[in-house]
């Protein structure tokens, strides 16, 4: 039933849905952006294991996890926000502010057991501020979160100034970087796994997650289906703020240092990983496995290149190239495919058919 011509109608009998042949399902799975990124990850890891000494060690895997943990953590809710066609650039500043507040509260003598919930709550509030400005005031999230990015980072300096609070108890800091007994896997790896699973289930297996796609791809249709687009978006910002705060706690304890400039400019890495993972900046498309693969791809490539003693400058360029290739390649592939279809059609008809590039909507703007 492989139809070579683009105009052929699906040949399923009237009213029947074709049972999905396994090969076809597999084929369509393989063509998704996520699959491309996961494939790239597998290739990268295999290549690195073969070519780079001490890459394929459990110790290195531990380091890799520690390094990508903060980005991975924030990328999870960021994926949801981007799927609803918004963006949050203030995450790194939220992280920094959390870290600063954590340090400040610690020097005031509060117990960590109290500080951590307070910080998470603050993160939720910071996210809610973004969310309210976006949904209630109706401001574009890109602009709003550039503003709060500066504001939150500034507040972090207000709270902690130029100080660095470093006297966190070893019992906490070593647990964060510590390994699960008998393995080289850091505890944070387990935390990540749990978080990723939770977000994965939320996005891919719950009614809420289904709604997010609809809200992002077609807010009007979502409204017609009984969803409150504003509430949904607001909650996504709150979630992002909370997780960014969690990342701030992790960051502070991992480096044992609470500073206002912690994780400066991390937001671009997070956004880059999310976009690399196949999430459309215009909302409505993307998956968590793709994003996690994207985070790990960035992480393992830079890890491998570092181990291979490739200088940092190449790392920076590779990051950018990956990002560009990941959006341009599928588009070019589409165009080539279209071109072929068109050619086969012009064999029957004499006039040309117009090309309607897949991303016509994308000329729409920085985000839709």
């Amino acid at each position, binding site marked *: 039933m492989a139809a070579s011509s683009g105009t052929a109608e699906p040949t399923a009998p009237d009213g029947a849905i074709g049972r999905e042949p396994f090969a076809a399902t597999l084929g369509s799975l393989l063509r998704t952006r996520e699959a491309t990124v996961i494939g790239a990850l597998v290739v990268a890891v295999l290549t690195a294991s073969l070519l780079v000494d001490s890459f394929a060690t459990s110790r290195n895997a531990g380091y890799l996890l520690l390094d990508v943990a903060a980005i991975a953590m924030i990328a999870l809710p960021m994926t949801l926000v981007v799927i609803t066609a918004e963006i949050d650039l203030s995450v790194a500043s939220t992280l920094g502010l959390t870290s600063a507040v954590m340090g400040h509260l610690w020097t005031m003598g509060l117990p960590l057991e109290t500080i951590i919930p307070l910080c998470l709550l603050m993160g939720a509030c910071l996210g809610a501020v973004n969310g309210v400005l976006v949904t209630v005031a109706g401001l574009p999230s890109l602009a709003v979160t550039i503003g709060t990015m500066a504001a939150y980072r500034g507040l972090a300096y207000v709270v902690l100034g130029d100080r660095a609070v470093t006297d966190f108890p070893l019992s906490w800091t070593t647990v964060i970087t510590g390994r699960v007994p008998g393995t080289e896997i850091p505890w944070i790896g387990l935390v990540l796994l749990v978080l990723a699973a939770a977000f994965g289930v939320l996005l891919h297996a719950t009614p809420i997650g289904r709604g997010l796609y609809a809200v992002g791809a077609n807010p009007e249709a979502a409204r017609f289906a009984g969803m409150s687009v504003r509430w949904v978006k607001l909650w996504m910002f709150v979630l992002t703020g909370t997780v960014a705060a969690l990342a701030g706690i992790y960051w502070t304890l991992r480096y044992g240092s609470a500073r206002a400039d912690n994780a400066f400019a991390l937001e671009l890495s997070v956004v880059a990983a999310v976009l690399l993972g196949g999430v459309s900046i215009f909302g409505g498309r993307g998956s968590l496995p793709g994003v996690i693969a994207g985070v790990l791809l960035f992480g393992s490539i830079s890890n491998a290149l570092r181990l291979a003693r490739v200088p940092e400058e190449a790392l920076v360029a590779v990051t950018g190239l990956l990002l560009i290739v990941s*959006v341009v390649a599928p588009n070019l592939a589409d165009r080539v495919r279209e071109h072929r279809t068109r050619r086969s059609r012009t064999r029957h008809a004499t006039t040309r058919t117009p090309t309607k590039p897949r991303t016509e909507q994308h000329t*729409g703007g920085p985000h839709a």
Partner: protein
Amino acid sequence: MTGGTGGTHTPDPAPARNGNGTAKRRTRMARELGLLLAIGTLVVVTWLYNPLFLSQQSVQDILLGATLLTILAVGQGTVIVTRNVDLSVGSVLGLSAFAVASFLTAFPGVPIVVGIAVGITLGAVCGVVNGALVAVARVPALVVTLGTLYVFRGIDFWWASGSRVDAADLPAAFLGIGRQSVLGIPVPALVALAVVLVAGHYLYSYRSGRELYAIGSQPAAARLSGIPVDRRIFGAFVLNGSLAGLAGVLYAARFGSVDATVGTGMELQVVAATVVGGVAIFGGSGTVYGAALGAVLLSTIGSALPVLQINQFWQQAVVGLLILLAIGLDKLLAVRTARRLREGRQHGG
């Protein structure tokens, strides 16, 4: 935006709404006037606090300080007007600054103009890369320019590999561009002013300039009205790239010492200035005058806060709040204008 209201039960023919038109124009102007007012207030308050703020030297410093951001904001404004964005400007500025500095160091004999041309051309080339990827491959500008942000910076790192060009290596005539004044106004500030005026004039008075607005306002309609959308978007990116290149040249001339980290993180500052200046992030409205004033406002805040002896640690927070305030105000103005137009329709018989 196939907008409109439902029924057509208003039997009378559409009434004239002259009053609203001018009102709208006035609110549009108000956007720029408001910025001027904000800058003026800030300057006066700071001056009252410390009269030295308006000394000849200090005014020169402020003008110089606003130069780069202004030029970048003009370019970014042009891109954002088309409903796109260019995040790579910081890297382009850095690359071009390093290029022009190394070029002039490597060939001490060549005329300064050639060096300047090298910087601008390199910026334009970067713009071509961005523009081609966005317009021809039709991929989202945010993703592409986030990618080129890293790529251009990587090239810069690789090229500089830890070296720096110092003022002493550069021809005095080149540094002179950054240091000389005409009638008390520093040359770079004059260049920025010229850029603002030319770009503003172009966007207002030429067909292709107006078409950029049309594209940003409603891309689908722009295609239907026969506007060469891809070519225009490409052009906007090239223009922005060239201006980032020019900014790089001025950076090198003014600061004299250039390494590979020049311009890091500038992109968000530029986008912020543009948005504060009233250029809608979704395109179609705003002027480069506004964007330039936004840049001047942001950099005046930067200059005034130390003079006002506001705790250094508060400065960034204040800047963030001001950005939020500015976009909120813009939205408020837009909503009020829309409401007045609607009411005008009802009463304006």
